[in-house]
């Protein structure tokens, strides 16, 4: 029974909460009422049996609890529109208590949680808490932030939504693309935080990756015509399919070309590949297409690097950033030889923008190593080591440095 309720919580929390928030216009009241409804389930279901439609039972119980609570608190400071909402909500309850379906309001709520009038950190925290049902403590742990700070961030954002009048609406027309971008940026940041921990010991924090994929799935299910949303889901699925092969037993990083490809999650790869477009036009779809090239290659030397270089060039036209330029340079090196890649990296190095980005130095070092220039490779590895923050990445670079130094021409 406990596990049944726990899995119900896991699967339906976000959806039920979204409907309650939409109906009540108040995050705190909705969260409290939903907690109470789950507590009531824990108490009543063992005695009275599981209702026929458990999620609907939770929703309608939470609705009654919310109305009771709002009455008891007599709602000092409630605005007229809030009281109106509550009256409507109360009138809509009653007859349809056993209703199987309640409206899915998660799409509206994603846009509310990721509204640009809320800062990015709070957008992330609020999305994880509201749509994924993560506790404040879990989110705080994932982002290595004190619980109290995270709690304050969430409460502040919830209050701002109410007092500033941030709407529960999917933006229409011209406003949609920019707002959708903000939603996708939040999902991708959550994924990346899990996939590549910027500091600390774990190479992968699986939970965040799973939650990001869950959010991307919700977005695709609710907006199936958005090719960028499909691209984002494909991108996260394809990257995540390599999760188990990215680190060895000591937590040390294993490069793409050295990973055991038979251990990639092929079910996830198939799901991701099915979302890939022939001619991707948006940045997420292009990045997904790049990930797809790696996923399709049975062996590293079967990788179609000239297609990858072409896709990076497309991406670069859209987002001219140094990091994308670096990836383009690496793809060019793989397709046409290290000298071509080094030439492009030299240009990036001259700009100075990536001085603190260890991947530029390690990419340069790797290409030099491949060309047999071990002396310059060693000094590039040292530059990388000077700026790297993740300890697993650091150990990887140290290993490589020892390798080139132990080469006859590498010691100086």
């Amino acid at each position, binding site marked *: 029974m406990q596990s049944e309720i726990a899995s119900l919580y896991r699967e339906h929390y976000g959806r039920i909460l979204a409907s309650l928030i939409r109906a009540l216009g108040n995050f705190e009241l909705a969260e409290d009422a939903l907690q109470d409804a789950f507590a009531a389930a824990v108490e009543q279901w063992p005695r009275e049996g599981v209702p026929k439609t458990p999620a609907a039972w939770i929703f309608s119980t939470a609705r009654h609890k919310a109305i009771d609570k709002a009455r008891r608190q007599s709602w000092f400071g409630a605005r007229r529109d809030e009281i109106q909402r509550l009256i409507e909500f109360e009138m809509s309850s009653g007859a349809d208590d056993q209703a199987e379906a309640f409206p899915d309001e998660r799409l509206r709520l994603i846009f509310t949680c990721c509204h640009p009038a809320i800062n990015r950190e709070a957008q992330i925290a609020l999305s994880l808490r509201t749509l994924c049902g993560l506790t404040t403590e879990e989110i705080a742990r994932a982002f290595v932030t004190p619980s109290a700070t995270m709690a304050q961030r969430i409460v502040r954002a919830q209050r701002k939504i109410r*007092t*500033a009048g*941030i709407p529960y609406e999917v933006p229409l027309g011209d406003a949609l693309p920019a707002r959708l971008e903000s939603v996708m940026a939040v999902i991708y940041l959550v994924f990346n935080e899990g996939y590549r921990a910027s500091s600390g010991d774990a190479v992968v924090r699986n939970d965040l990756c799973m939650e990001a994929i869950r959010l991307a799935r919700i977005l695709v299910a609710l907006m199936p015509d958005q090719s960028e949303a499909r691209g984002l889901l494909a991108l996260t699925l394809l990257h995540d399919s390599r999760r188990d092969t990215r680190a060895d037993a000591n937590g040390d990083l294993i490069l793409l070309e050295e990973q055991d490809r038979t251990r990639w999650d092929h079910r996830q790869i198939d799901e991701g590949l099915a979302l890939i477009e022939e001619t991707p036009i948006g940045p997420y779809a292009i990045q997904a297409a790049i990930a797809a090239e790696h996923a399709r290659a049975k062996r590293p030397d079967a990788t179609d690097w000239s297609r990858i270089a072409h896709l990076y060039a497309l991406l670069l036209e859209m987002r001219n950033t140094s990091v994308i330029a670096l990836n383009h340079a690496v793809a060019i090196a793989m397709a046409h030889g290290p000298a071509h890649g080094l030439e492009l990296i030299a240009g990036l190095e001259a700009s100075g923008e990536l001085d603190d980005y260890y991947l530029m130095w390690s990419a340069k070092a790797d290409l030099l190593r491949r060309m047999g220039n071990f002396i310059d490779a060693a000094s590039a590895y040292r530059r990388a080591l000077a700026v790297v923050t993740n300890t697993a990445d650091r150990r990887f670079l140290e290993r490589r440095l020892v390798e080139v130094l132990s080469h006859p021409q590498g010691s100086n």
Partner: protein
Amino acid sequence: MEYALLIYGNEADAAKMTEAEGHAVFQGYMEFTKWIEGSGKMKGGRPLEKIGSATTVRVRNGKTTTTDGPFAETKEQLGGFYLVEAKDLDEAIAIAARIPGANHGCIEVRPVMNIPM
């Protein structure tokens, strides 16, 4: 002549007040409002929601950007204000973006406090 009287204060200090102190301040505002209304000099004025509810809107090259929080730089000065009715923050931001000043300075959007009557 018409004058705008802009009230500055420290929210953190206000939050530390005891209930009695807070009540005294509220009472003071009630008295001032009653007096200024009675004098015929009142043109309008409302308390604003706390600074946490603020959003700053800028338009650069025709693109609207919004940031969470109040206007915080000091090289620009308050030049005026509009009090508008909007259905939600999105509409308020869209209106703010049409104010010419949004193209070089910025517009702070603050909800007016709801006072239960």
